[in-house]
Structures are given as C-alpha cells and as structure tokens.
C-alpha cells in the first residue's frame, strides 16, 4: 500500500514539476537578461492554452497525430515506470530505462520526417545527427556503468560506486543529460531564428502542447537518471534515493537553465564534434581507471 501511495505521489510530481521547472528556468533567464519575466506557472498556462486550441491536423495527417500521441504516452510512461521501478528496487531498472528512452527519442526524431516541410525535415535531421552521438553515448555510458558494477540495476548503498571510474562515468552522463535536454547551445533541431521552430514547425494547438509537455518530461528524466546514480552510495533507502534525486534534478534544472542563458547556439557540424571531444576522453579515462582498479 505504502509503495502504491509513494508511486502515485512521485508519478504525480513527475508529471506536475517539469512545466513548473521550465517556468522557474524562464524566471532565472529573465533575471540574467535584467527582465522581470513571466510567473513560474506561465509554462502551465501556455500548455493549457495550447490544449484548449482547435486541433489542426498537420501535413502528414493521422500518422502524425498517432505518433505524437505515442510520443507523449511513452514519455509519460518512461518517467512513471522509472520512479515506480526505483521505489520497488527493480533489478533490471537500467535496461528498462535505456529501452524506453531510446523509444522516446526514436519517435521524437521520426515524426517531423513525415511532413514535407523542409524546415521540419532539416530540424529532424539535425536531431538525428545529435542523437547519433549523444544518445548512443548515453547508452554506452549506462552500458559501461552496468559492466563496471556487474549489475543491470541500481546498487543501493554500495560504496564501490564511489570509485573514480564510476564518478567520471556519471559526470559524463550529466553532460549527456544537458545535451539531451535540447537547451542552447544544442537546440539546433528547433533553432527558432534559423528554422522557424524546425522539427516542431508543423505542430500547433494540442499536438504542439503534447510535444512540449513530453519534452519537459524528458528533460526531467534525463536529469533524474544521473542524479540517482550519483546519490546511490549515500543511502540505503529507495524512497530517500528518489527524494534526493528529485531535489538534485531540480537543482540541476536551475543550473542548466543558467548555463543555457550564458551561451549561444552551436551548429550541426560543430555540435557532435564538440560533445565527442568531451565524451571520448572521459570514457577512455574512466575505462583506464577501472582497469587500474580505481
């Protein structure tokens, strides 16, 4: 019963918090800009307004609507499954997380290709380019993590996770989380002044609302995973782990928002190389440290 209540509470928080965090991020960005900014509930207002608008079926028709629904559903299920599985201490949680996340990403990059809008197609192809590096490395990092720990799940309270090789891997995952969140400088798929919202250009009203909401959930998810991994050694309770991870994800959200406000947008030919320059040395050093017993 307790498990069920906590599952519902955390699932509810997972669905409620992301737009609020985006509101906080907008507020922080506004302060950096010397503006007052909108209230922190503004993103929720925006989403509700989009959901109230008429449904305009974009070019690509029902395929887009079905895939958009699937994207939203999967994004929501991913975060709910994640918190539920963590609470129950599910043994294969990392494998399930990786699988669900890859599905979510695959649908996100696929939908814009269905339209014949060149901006959407260019935006989607940029997303694919970025995903080919970032999401692949997300999987590689989690794969190495499982290999190093010898477990497809989360090892609660294990001090062996405090090794340098493990910490370096999780730090790389934080970078991957930043890239996957689609913030500047990596918002090249949408790149409003270049592609007029690119991948999202054909969406409006409830479909756009759904896409945006799903993206916010994805942003929480990609922060939650490394937060859990870094906090694992410090607690023996799944509930505390989840509370700590949520708190850390919120702090990270603010931090990432702040970083995004200080940078400009990169280019599709520069972005993958830039992140490879971080991932490859970090992973190599991590493997070497692991082999050296650290």
């Amino acid at each position, binding site marked *: 019963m307790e498990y069920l209540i906590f599952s519902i509470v955390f699932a509810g928080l997972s669905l409620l918090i992301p737009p609020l965090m985006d509101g906080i991020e907008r507020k922080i*960005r506004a302060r*950096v*800009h*010397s*503006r007052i900014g909108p209230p922190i509930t503004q993103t929720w207002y925006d989403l509700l307004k989009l959901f109230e608008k008429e449904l305009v079926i974009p070019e690509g028709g029902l395929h887009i609507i079905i895939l958009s629904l699937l994207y939203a559903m999967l994004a929501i299920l991913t975060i709910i499954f994640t918190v539920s599985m963590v609470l129950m201490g599910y043994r294969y949680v990392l494998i399930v997380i990786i699988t669900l996340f890859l599905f979510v990403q695959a649908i996100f990059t696929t939908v814009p290709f269905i339209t014949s809008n*060149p*901006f959407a197609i*260019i935006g989607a192809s*940029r997303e694919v380019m970025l995903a080919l590096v970032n999401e692949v490395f997300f999987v590689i990092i989690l794969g190495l993590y499982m290999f190093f720990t010898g477990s497809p799940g989360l090892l609660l309270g294990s001090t062996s996770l405090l090794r340098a090789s493990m910490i370096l891997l999780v730090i790389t995952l934080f970078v991957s989380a930043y890239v996957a969140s689609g913030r*500047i*400088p990596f*918002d*090249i798929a949408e*790149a*409003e*002044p*270049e592609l*007029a919202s690119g991948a999202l250009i054909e969406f409006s009203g409830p479909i756009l609302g759904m896409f945006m909401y799903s993206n916010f959930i994805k942003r929480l998810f990609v922060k939650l995973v490394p937060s859990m991994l870094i906090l694992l050694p410090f607690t023996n309770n799944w509930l505390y782990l989840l509370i700590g991870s949520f708190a850390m994800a919120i702090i990270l959200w603010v931090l990432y928002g702040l970083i995004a*406000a*200080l*940078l*400009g*947008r*990169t*280019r*599709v*030919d*520069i972005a993958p190389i830039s992140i490879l320059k971080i991932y490859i040395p970090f992973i190599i050093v991590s493997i070497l440290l692991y082999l050296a017993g650290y």
Partner: protein
Amino acid sequence: MDIISKYIDAIKAIEPRADIHVSDDTVYTTVSSSKLRDLAKAIYWDMDCFFRTCVGADERSINGFYALYHIFGDDRNGLNIVLKVYADPNNPTIPSIVDIVPAADWCEMEARDLLGIEFSGRKQYRLVLPPYWPKDLYPLRKEVPYNVKPQVIISSEKVGSWGKAPTGVAVPVGPYHPALHEPEYFELYVEGERVVDVRYRGFHVHRGIEKLGESKLTYQQVNFVAERICGICGFEHSVCYAQAIEKAAGIEIPERAKFIRSIVLEVERIHSHLLWVGVAAHLLGYDTGFMHTWRIREHVMVIAEMLTGSRKTYGINLIGGVRKDINEEKKRRALDVLKIIEKEFAELVKTMVNVPQIMKRLKGTGILPREDARKLSVVGPTARGSGLDRDIRRDLPYAAYGYADFNVPVYDEGDNLSRFLVRVDEVYESISIIRQLLDQLPQGPIMIEEFDIPEGRMAVSVVEAPRGEDIHFVITGRGKPYRWKVRAPTYQNIPALRVMLRDQPLADAPITIASIDPCFSCTDRVFIIDKHGHRKSLDQIMYRWR
C-alpha cells in the same frame, strides 16, 4: 592637374561632344548613348570609382526626352560623377552597363519597371512591380496620376532574378520568417545543410513614395515623408533629402543647424548599431546579449527623445535647418548618458566575444571578398568589413562632420565577424563625434526661413547612414521636386548576399543575411502614414491597394 580637370579630360577623350558642368562636389556630364558604355568603363574601372545608383526621369515636359542618370562616386577625391543619357520618347532604349558595372543591375531594372526605359544588351526582368501589374503602365511617367489603381488579377510568380533554377532543395526564407523582420523573400537552395545558391525577390512593400513626393507633396512636406522611409535610420533620409534641395537651390543653412543634424545622425547610428548587435546575438541564440544590448540602447533612445522630442522619427528636419535646439542642460545630460552607454557597451562586447558560439559562428562565415565588394559597390559596414575604406562622412563631408576628428574602422576579412567589429568600433567613434560636436556647438540661429528654390536645378546628396550611403537625387520643380530618387544602402548590399551565402552552412544564413543589416522597407521605400497623419498597418495598405 586638379582632379576635376582629370575627369573632364578623360570624358572628353571618349566623348568630345560631352556637355560637362561642375556644381559643388558633382561633375554633370551629358553624353550620347553610344559612348555610355565606354565612359562607364573608364569611370568605374579605369578611374576606380564606385557606382552609387542610376536614376530614370521623365523629362518630356522639359526637353522632350526620357533621361537616365548614372551616378558614380570618387570617394577618395570627394566627387560625384553623373553621366546623363537621353532616351527617345517613343522608344526609350538605352544600352545597359550591367556587364561593365554589375552594381547597376537593380537600378536599370527599376527604371524599366517605373518609367518603361528599355535596356539593350542584357536580360531584363521585373524588379519592383508585381507580375500582374499592367505592362504598359509606368508609374513614374508624368501623365500617370499618383493614385492610379489599375484593375489587376493577382497572380503568383516564379522567383528568378538571379538566373536559372539551381539544384538542391529550396528552403524559403520569407516573406514571413523569424529571422526577417520585414517582408522579403529569399529562396535558399541547399544540399544537406550547405547553401548552393540563392534567389531573391523583394519590393513587396514598394509604395511609390517617390511618385508621391513628385506629385502630391510640397518641398517641406517631403522631409517628413522621407523620414518615414525607415523606422530605424529615417533621420538620415530626411537629412539627405533636405541637403539635396539645399544643394540644388544653393541654400546655406546655419552652422548650428549643421551641428545639430550631425549630432542626431550619430545618435541614430548608435541606436541602429546597438539594435543590430542585439539582433545578431539573438540570431546566434545568445538572447542574453540581445536583451542587454537593447537595454543599453534604451539610454540612446533617452538621448534621442531629449534632443528631439521623440524616441524615433524626430521630425526636426526642414529645408533650411532644424526645428529643435539643444540647450546647455540637454548637452550636459547627453554627455552624462553617453558615459553610461560607453561603459556598459564596452562590458557587453567584452562578454559577447567570450561566448564561444558567437565567435565560432561569426568568424569565417558569410565571406564577401574585397573584389566582389568592389564589383558590386557595396556600402557601409558591409564595404568596410571587406576592406573597402569608404565613409561618406569623411570622404564627402556634410553637415558638421568636417569639424569632428574620427577614425573609419576597416577590416579585411570580409566575414560576419568583420562586419560585427566595424559596427562595434563605429559605436565608439559615434560617441566621440557627439562629444566633439557638443563641445564645439556654435551659437546662432538653427533655421533660415527665407529662401528660394529655383526650378530645373539638380543635386546629388549622399549621407552615411548606419547601413551605408543613403543617396537622394533631386531635380527641382515648381513648389515640389520634379524628380526625387531615393536609394537606400540595403539596395546596394542585397546583391552581395548571393556571394556571401553560397557554400555556407544553412544555419549561418540568417546571421549572414542580417550581417548587411538589411532594411527592406528602406530599400522598397515603404510609406505607411496616411494623409491625415494616421499610421496604417501594412495589411490595411495592401487591402486598399488591391
């Protein structure tokens, strides 16, 4: 031998019958059309002049002919060279010089659209008028009323002013696009993310402002219309027009008025450049830079409002001087605010150049080589960013620029970064110019009330606007200009975009287009104030026009 004699000799060597006279800084020459091309070549290439613009005129009521004026500029020697050619009133055809002077492409086609002057030896196309405009209706001919509303059937058109359809996927940029704040249309052809070719269609908001000035308004009223050509640098147009009439009529305005004009012109340059730096930051995704640039720009708007009574579109300029004086209190406050602007702008630029994405995306992108810049006679920061050392404030000093000591920043790389740095440097130079002029502001009147504007005089006035040279050419008439031609700097710079955009990443196309600081409504000469002084939205005007 002085430079004017050199020009006269060179012209006489090619066209012994040329009718030449010199007025102020301009050499006017009437030549036969058979010698036009040789003379254009000699002036543009052999004597290393720039091309300013060409102007078609319906002079049938004066001398029985159409006329075309090609205006060249010798910036190093502070001269304008005007070649005038007559065209038969029944079959107005003039040899094209576009293969010799590529920069003459648009103005020739504009004269064809608006006056029906045909150009032999070149491909001709519609530039200004929409495709469905009647073929035999030429709006700038004197018999055509200013308010003519032809019955038309709206139709679409193929965009093709820059040659054959290229390969690749067409990515439309405009007429409405987040990167363009005015309605223009670029068609970028891409292979992958690389731009392989570009096509352009502009003049969506051409509203015949010149016709209005020549038929409906008085000399002084045109000042206010001219200022409304541009929402950013309108004062330059107003000054340029007023100076053209003053030059044609030989009106010497008070020194104090000249100083006030220069001061306000520099205020306008600062806010225009800050606006651009902000927009550039936004296009590169650095919205923090955008917001802070525009925050600093607000200080400039405060100065503008204090000195003129308005944040923009000041309305202080008239033929004969200015309508608003600067007192000691305003002087003191303006100097105080300038200190703040200088300090905050320096901090901002220091921060911006340390944002890695800004530098990576400005450096080495949108390159306009010096040779192409010269060939197309580009102007302003676009020219100075490609190594062309030209600035009308220094080369043909007007207003009070002769009293100020300033540098003209020039960078040779020709990329987006060079144009960015030119504008940044110019902000500091403008601050310095304002300080110098405020310090030297002479006493005396700011306006002369009594003057006469004789008919049949002509003048070329050039003003260095933030985007480059504004050119106003006038032939005086009775109570109003007989011919009033406006050429905004963007008009001269847009053709260079084809060079700048080709073989560039698509992602850099918006910043490259923005790097010429395009002002499309300036180029099209939009006018959105009705006769009662009410602002009209573009939609309202489009509706009425149709």
